[in-house]
């Protein structure tokens, strides 16, 4: 569609319209609103960053100090070196959980999605409908019983309750992968079948190499969700040495007499990895989210 518009624009058909007075007014309104709203949306982040770089008295000043000079980079060191709040350990814990969740989700969802995309069996449509229905299941409904289960297994205060469920597939990722796998030409697999390759081998040598875009989308969104998750680690990790970054920050925030500049430095620590990931993998984020809205 955009290509057609571009052609039309190049051919000059639309340019004539651009000079209509109504069109100019519309452009001013649209761009004015966009600029105003983008400032509004970015301001809280700007406020977070400047606060993180102020001295404590500077945070209480009005009119505010917009650009602290010199920036207090040492705030990050101070926020990190609090022996009561080992943020280094929190980051390590979160990354460990990420490793377990990412590998589990990618492996299990690839397998399940392949089955739904390629193989025929009685009951398949029913199972697929069930899978889609779980997308709407409120998590709150299984919070308590899941806790009871993991408590029985003695897994409370370990990373297992956060990692193990991801090895059993996840509806949204399975759906997205299945849609992608269905577009891979079957002929590519048939050669492998004739050679007597097993299903696992076909998935690994034919499907996976052709599916890197969808695997990247799922890996990135999974990384984000796991990094940002608060409720699950809050329920299962009681020992401070097991906290994730999100739980550690909430704990820090719950202390009395916290210095706001250090709190903002810690918040930035939680926020930045995902923002940096977004900047490098914007395409994957946008695709993954945009596709959420498509009906199966």
């Amino acid at each position: 569609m955009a290509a057609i518009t571009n052609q039309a624009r190049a051919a000059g058909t639309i340019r004539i319209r651009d000079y209509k007075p109504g069109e100019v007014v519309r452009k001013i309104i649209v761009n004015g609103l966009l600029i105003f709203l983008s400032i509004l949306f970015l301001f809280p982040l700007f406020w977070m960053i400047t606060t993180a770089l102020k001295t404590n008295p500077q945070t209480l000043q009005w009119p505010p100090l917009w650009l602290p000079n010199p920036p207090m980079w040492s705030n990050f060191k101070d926020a990190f070196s609090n022996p009561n709040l080992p943020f280094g350990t929190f980051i390590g814990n979160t990354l460990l959980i990420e490793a377990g969740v990412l590998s589990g989700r990618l492996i299990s969802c690839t397998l399940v999605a392949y089955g739904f995309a390629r193989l025929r069996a009685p009951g398949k449509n029913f199972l697929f409908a069930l899978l889609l229905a779980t997308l709407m299941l409120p998590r709150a409904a299984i919070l308590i019983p899941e806790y009871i289960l993991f408590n029985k297994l003695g897994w409370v205060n370990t990373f297992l309750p956060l990692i193990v469920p991801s090895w059993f597939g996840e509806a949204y990722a399975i759906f997205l992968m299945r849609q992608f796998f269905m577009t891979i030409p079957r002929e590519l697999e048939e050669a492998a079948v004739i050679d007597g390759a097993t299903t696992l081998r076909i998935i690994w040598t034919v499907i996976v190499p052709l599916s890197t875009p969808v695997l990247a989308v799922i890996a990135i969104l999974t990384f984000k969700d796991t990094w940002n998750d608060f409720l699950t680690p809050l329920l299962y990790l009681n020992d401070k040495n097991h906290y994730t970054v999100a739980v550690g920050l909430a704990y820090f925030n719950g202390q009395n007499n916290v210095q706001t500049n250090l709190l903002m430095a810690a918040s930035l620590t939680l926020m930045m990895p995902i923002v940096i990931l977004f900047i490098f993998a914007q395409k994957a984020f946008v695709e993954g989210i945009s596709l959420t809205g498509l009906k199966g």
Partner: protein
Amino acid sequence: MRRFERRAFMARVTTANNLPKRKEHRGFSPAARREAAIFYLTVSPWVLGFLLFTIIPMAISLYLSFTQWAFVKAPVWIGLDNFVYMFTKDPDFYQSLKVTLLFTVTSVPLQIIVALLLAVLLNEATRAVGFFRTAFYIPSIVASVASAVLWTWIFNPRFGPINGLLRSIGMYGPNWFSDPKYALPALVIMSAWGVGGQMLIFLAGLKGIPRSLYEAAEVDGANRIRRFVSITLPMLSPTIFFNLIMAMIGAFQTFDSAYVISTAHAGQIGQPQNSTLFYLLHLYQEGFSNFNMGYASALAWVLFIIILTVTLIINRSSKSWVFYSGEGD
């Protein structure tokens, strides 16, 4: 090039349903049986997980909702007592329900309107589209804990920028999160900041509306507002429906922001005066602070039924306002 790749990717994923189906081979040939066996093997992780982490836990919690259980001794069957207590005696139940419903009916429409406005503007934009999209989207990927901590500071009555701005034009801002009247409205305002995901979904929906419709309407002399009401809104109604359901389910389960904000600086969950005691906070307190696992299970089931009912009502109403054009996705 990038743009092209994205379109190719989207096209592949969205056209998956329209591909010609392979001929079904009927009967139970050994090959068909083998294929079915492999199918069940490949989907077994999900089926197992569904049983283990969804169906069985939900069944157990249904049983527990009729018991009294504090983790130590075996659960004691008490019939409907949990539900009777919930509806007749528990003051926090009605308070949490009120807070959650108030938040849902205010924040969901606000989120939909803001997300739609941003998407429409982005769709009209000709310059720096990538920058604007990033600006609107980034807040939605900020961890909920970080954004709650940040907004506590932004709404700080004495040193925050909002009240600072109000002061400089001679007004006195409220105490926001420490005032029972303003804590919930502040959370609603905050919720509009994180609509980036919904905005992207709307944007994808807008891009899918055939331009020919607008051209035909323009020929017929329909003005911009008319075109928005008669073309954009109906064509976008499936997307609005989807975002509405998802935002509603999310709003009913609000937890992170309310927990972090009310417990800031050694505060109590749900404070001030239980004005931010969301349903899930109440459930969390009963289950994980008081260890009333039986009662918490009953609360969870009531929430599940509420969400299910509201979803069904919206779904039912959708027949009258959601417009599906004949041609697939």
